[in-house]
C-alpha cells in the first residue's frame, strides 16, 4: 500500500477513534449561533441580514478549536519523527495530513452550516454563497491554523497561542468572503470575488505546507 493510502486509512481510523474531535466543532457552531438571537433579537429580518456573517465567523472559530491537536498527539507519541522516514518529502506528508483533516473534520462542519442558516433565517441564495465561500476559504484557513499549530509545537502546554498567532492572517479571507456574502444578498454577481478567494486559497494551500514542513522539522530536530 502506498504511503498516501496508508495515511488516509490511518486518518480515518483516528477520526473513528476520537469521535469527540469530530462533533465538538459542530456542537460549538450550533451553540454559538443559538446565542446570537438571544443576544440580539428574535426578529427574523434583522437576523437574516447579519446571520450569514455571524455563521461565517462562528464556523471560522469552530474550525480553530481542534487546530492545535493537528500535530501535537503525533509529536508527543514520537510518530511525527517517523514521518521523516517515509520516502516522501515532509511538505507532501503535511499536505496529505491537512487534506485528511479538511476532509474528515472541516467538510462535515460546513455541511452543518445550513442548519445554522435556517436558525438565523438566512435567505437561500445567501446560504449557497455561504457554503461556497466556506468550501473555498477553508483550505487556506486549515493551512494557516496548521502553521500556527506547528510553530507552537515546542511550547509546553497546548493552548490557543497557535490560533492567536495566525488570526491576523485570516483578515483577507474574511474580507473577501464577507464581500461575497454582501454581494449575494443584494443579488449582484459574486464570481469575481469567488475567483479571488479561490486564488488566495490555492496559493495558501500550496505554499504554506512548505512553511509547516520547515516548522515541524525545526521542532523535531530541536527536541533531543
Amino acid at each position: 500500500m502506498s504511503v498516501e493510502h496508508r495515511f488516509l486509512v490511518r486518518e480515518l481510523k483516528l477520526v473513528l477513534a476520537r469521535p469527540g474531535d469530530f462533533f465538538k466543532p459542530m456542537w460549538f457552531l450550533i451553540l454559538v449561533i443559538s446565542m446570537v438571537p438571544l443576544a440580539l433579537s428574535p426578529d427574523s429580518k434583522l437576523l437574516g441580514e447579519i446571520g450569514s456573517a455571524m455563521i461565517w465567523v462562528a464556523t471560522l472559530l469552530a474550525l480553530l478549536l481542534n487546530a492545535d491537536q493537528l500535530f501535537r498527539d503525533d509529536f508527543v507519541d514520537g510518530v511525527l519523527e517517523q514521518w521523516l522516514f517515509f520516502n516522501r518529502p515532509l511538505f507532501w506528508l503535511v499536505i496529505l495530513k491537512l487534506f485528511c483533516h479538511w476532509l474528515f473534520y472541516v467538510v462535515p462542519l460546513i455541511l452543518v452550516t445550513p442548519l445554522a442558516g435556517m436558525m438565523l433565517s438566512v435567505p437561500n441564495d445567501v446560504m449557497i454563497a455561504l457554503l461556497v465561500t466556506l468550501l473555498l476559504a477553508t483550505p487556506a484557513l486549515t493551512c494557516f491554523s496548521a502553521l500556527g499549530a506547528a510553530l507552537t509545537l515546542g511550547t509546553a502546554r497546548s493552548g490557543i497561542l497557535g490560533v492567536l498567532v495566525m488570526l491576523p492572517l485570516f483578515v483577507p479571507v474574511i474580507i473577501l468572503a464577507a464581500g461575497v456574502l454582501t454581494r449575494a444578498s443584494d443579488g449582484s454577481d459574486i464570481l469575481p470575488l469567488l475567483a479571488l478567494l479561490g486564488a488566495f486559497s490555492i496559493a495558501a494551500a500550496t505554499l504554506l505546507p512548505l512553511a509547516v514542513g520547515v516548522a515541524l522539522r525545526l521542532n523535531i530536530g530541536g527536541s533531543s
Partner: protein
Amino acid sequence: MGWRWFHEWGSPKWFYDRAGRWQRVCGFLALALLLVGTLWGLGFAPADYQQGNSYRIIYLHVPVAFLAQALYVAMAVCAIVLFVWKMKLADVGMQALAVVGFGFTVLALFSGSIWGKPTWGTYWVWDARLTSMLILGFLYLGLIGLRSAIQNPDQAGKACAILVLVGVVNLPIIKYSVEWWSALHQPASFKLTEKPAMPASMWVPLLINLLGYYLVAAYLVLASMRTVILDRERGSAWVREVIERD
C-alpha cells in the same frame, strides 16, 4: 536543510562593543532632530486651511506609522539573514525589533485615533490605515507571544523567523484587502494622510521628524539588542570581562 551555527563576521562580542557607540550617536542625533522637527512642526509650520492646527499631529503620527511597518520589514530581512547565513545576530535583532515595533504600532494607533476625534468626531474610525495598523499590531503581538512561549532560544528564533516571513508576504495582501473593504463600505472620506500638495514649509519638518524617529528606533533597537546579547551569552568569558570593566 542544515541549521549549522557558525559566527561569520556578526560575532556577538564584535557587535556588542560597536553597538554601544552607534547607540549613543543615534541617541543624541535623534534627540536633536526630534526637538527641531517637533518645534518646527508645532510652532512654525503654517496651519492647514481645512483642519486648522489639529493636522500638526501628522508630525508624530506619519513617521511613527511609517516606522511601525518599516520595523516589520526589517524583521523580515533579519529572518532571511537568519535562514540563509544562520547568523545568531539576526535572531537577536528580530527579538529587539519586535518589541520596539510593537511600541511604535501602539503609538501610531493611539495618535491616529486621537487625531480622529477633531477630524471625524469619534475616537475610533474603521479607516483603512488605522485598521491595517491594528492588524499589524496583532502580528507584532503574535511574534512577541511566540518568542516568549518557546523556551529554547534557537528554536524560538527560527519559529519567529517563519512567522515573520509568512506575515510579511501577507502584509500587502492585508493592506489592499482592508483598503478595498473600507472603500466598499465608506465613501472615500478624508484619508488621514492625504497630503494635498503640501508646501515646503509643511513637509520639511515632516522629513526631519521622520529621520528623528528613525534614529530613535535605531537607538532603542541597538540598546535592546545589547541587552539580549548579554543575556544569551552570559556563559561566555567575554561577557565576564565586560561586566568587570563596567
